């Protein structure tokens, strides 16, 4: 550009200057203007020309940003080429103009409330200028995208089958689940409607073709990424297995359940209590706690630790008095503990430890006020005791 207006003298100077420049990056001793001939199979001029031609072709094809890059590459090879500089400048002005137009159209679409169109305009601006802050901010802050279609539920529809049909991926049922704010493990009622949203990156199997396929560039465009492995279009739905649409599980709860499976009931109870302190009244948490208390009570009963078993069962009764056969377990435990105290009383009585025997039977009466044997034994033992005491006085 600078050299262009200054005649042959300037052009000659430029040639010299460039020769010096190129030698900066070369260690091979070649003629001026030709860096490391050993390394470069093509001379500077034909190399630059190749990129110039590519730039022109891309520009003709409307691939403006790629064309600009090719002009810049040509300029890296031949920095003094004024025509290239000028071409780049003109193209950049064209790009800036196009970006401004897209931004304007996008903002107008936004003002009309047509978000899908606004989004496309802002994206088109970014495709031309991928560092355009205005387009980026508009997309990020102002544009609520999400195209979706409406599906009317038919008998037998499941989320996984719908996901397979629309996305070719059963696991995207979660997205339908989330989009429609369905409850965990939902039952889909025939006749109701569901939003099936577009998921970026997942081929959307739409009944009506919704977008023209992206035009393939005539010239290889290195910055079009290879798309990731994608599932094929809707394969016939695999036989529906268990549908699981539940949010992730709290780890403390998971750990409590795991302890429960190991029959480590104290651990399960301690862990679930920790969980419940954060989420008091949580139904799942309470279910685990009841299971754990029940299991603990049973194992204590088997180990003849009746008092402990009763404690566990009493805790359980506070959560749910009619849990499984807990009431009957509680009766069993009480019966056994009464038997224990009763027999212990008899043992003391035989050993003539009357006071101790009476204490044991009193426990029996406390637990079972209608226990006639214990009452009779106490009477008997007290009579004996009184007789003994009178004899001692004499």
């Amino acid at each position: 550009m600078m050299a262009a207006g200054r005649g042959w003298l300037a052009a000659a100077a430029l040639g010299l200057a460039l020769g010096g420049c190129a030698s900066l990056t070369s260690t091979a001793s070649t003629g001026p203007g030709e860096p490391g001939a050993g390394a470069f199979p093509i001379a500077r001029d034909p190399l630059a020309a190749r990129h110039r031609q590519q730039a022109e072709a891309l520009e003709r094809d409307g691939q403006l940003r790629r064309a600009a890059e090719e002009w810049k590459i040509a300029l890296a090879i031949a920095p003094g080429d004024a025509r290239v500089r000028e071409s780049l400048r003109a193209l950049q002005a064209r790009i800036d103009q196009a970006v401004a137009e897209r931004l304007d159209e996008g903002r107008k679409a936004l003002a009309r409330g047509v978000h899908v169109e606004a989004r496309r305009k802002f994206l088109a601006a970014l495709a031309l200028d991928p560092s355009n802050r205005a387009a980026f901010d508009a997309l990020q802050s102002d544009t609520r995208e999400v195209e979706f279609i409406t599906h009317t539920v038919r008998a037998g529809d499941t989320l996984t089958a719908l996901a397979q049909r629309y996305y070719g991926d059963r696991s995207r049922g979660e997205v339908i689940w989330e989009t429609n704010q369905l409850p965990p493990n939902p039952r889909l009622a025939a006749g109701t409607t569901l939003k099936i949203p577009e998921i970026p990156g997942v081929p959307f199997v739409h009944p009506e073709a919704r977008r023209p396929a992206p035009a393939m560039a005539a010239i290889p465009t290195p910055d079009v990424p290879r798309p990731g492995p994608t599932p094929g279009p809707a394969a016939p739905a695999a036989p529906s297995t268990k549908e699981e649409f539940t949010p992730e599980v709290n780890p403390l709860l998971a750990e409590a359940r795991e302890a429960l499976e190991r029959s480590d009931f104290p651990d399960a109870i301690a862990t679930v209590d920790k969980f419940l302190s954060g989420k008091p009244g949580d139904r799942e948490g309470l279910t685990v706690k009841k299971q754990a208390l029940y299991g603990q009570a049973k194992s204590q009963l088997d180990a003849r630790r009746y008092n402990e078993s009763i404690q566990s069962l009493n805790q359980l009764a506070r959560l749910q008095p009619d849990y499984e056969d807990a009431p009957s377990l509680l009766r069993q435990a009480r019966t056994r503990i009464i038997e224990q105290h009763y027999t212990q009383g008899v043992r003391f009585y035989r050993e003539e430890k009357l006071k101790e025997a009476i204490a044991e039977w009193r426990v029996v009466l406390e637990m079972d006020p209608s226990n006639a044997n214990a009452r009779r034994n106490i009477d008997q033992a007290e009579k004996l005791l009184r007789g003994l005491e009178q004899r001692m006085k004499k």
Partner: protein
Amino acid sequence: MRRRARGSGLLASVAALSLAACATASAPAPGPAPAAGSPPPRPAAYQSEDFIVTFAQPGDTPKALAERYLGGADKGWMIEDYTGLRAFAPGQEVVIPRRPWNPAGVTPGGYQIVPILTYHNLGEQAKGRLVLAAASFREQMRYLKTNGYRVVSLAEFIEFSRLNRQLPQRAVVLTFDDGYRAFKDLAYPVLKELGFTATLFIYTDWVGAGRGALSWADLRELAAAGMDIQGHSKTHADLRRAQGETEAQYARRMQAELEQPQELFNRNLGRRSQILAYPYGRWEEGLLPKVKEYGYIAAFSVRRQGNASFMRPLAGHRSQIYSEMTLDDFVKNLNVFQEENLR
């Protein structure tokens, strides 16, 4: 040098200008400066601020060229992505971009999306949906490596979502929720072997709580080893406003769920958390101002889809990897491009 050239009138001044352009072009290049007395001739290159044009020497790989011209082998992806090639024939022309050329990841054919994968617990055997077998995890990570995916950090992704960083076209982020001990025992060794990084989203009530939980000491150790630790609330409760919860009650609850972890982060890791994973992936619009108020700049659900650069910062998506998934199921979560005609 330019000063000394002055005095020869027009010629000199034109030459000086051209030289200035050259000088700025090649000055920052760490590459082939002439080194006195180094016998093997090094490849030459044309350079400008934007591009380097060179020809591959025998044995040149994207990594080797990146090391030579871009200041680090870790920038090899720039050459691979720009050229669309992973290997070069000797004598082949290679155009190397010196600067990010597509920070938004948007092209006329569509736009880049970044999958963020979510793992929970690992075990020697799979158990339930959320305890993944260690062998499956290893298989999945190897798949990423051998198929050209590039694991980037969540922080790098956040920069991408602010238009401040270009990411490799096949960028993937790895995250692990809750803070299970199994991360350290089973996942970390695999990540280390493959040179991957990951973010742990921990909820602070769990730290050091159960037998299967990581401690703060573990977390410090993992952070020192290059893992990123971020927040996942205090109690792992659903952060949406509950039915019947008054505004004041909700504000208090959010203070506990969002701010108390920050204090623990500060005390134990010497910094606050900037990124939040919503417990159960659940959020609603009314929650977002509170998330912002407590200093989180980005937050993620578990909606199974990838993220464009222009995603809403507090409404990011992650894809949960379940134990029952086959490798094919896993791969379905790795889409990195949304085709859309944007011309």
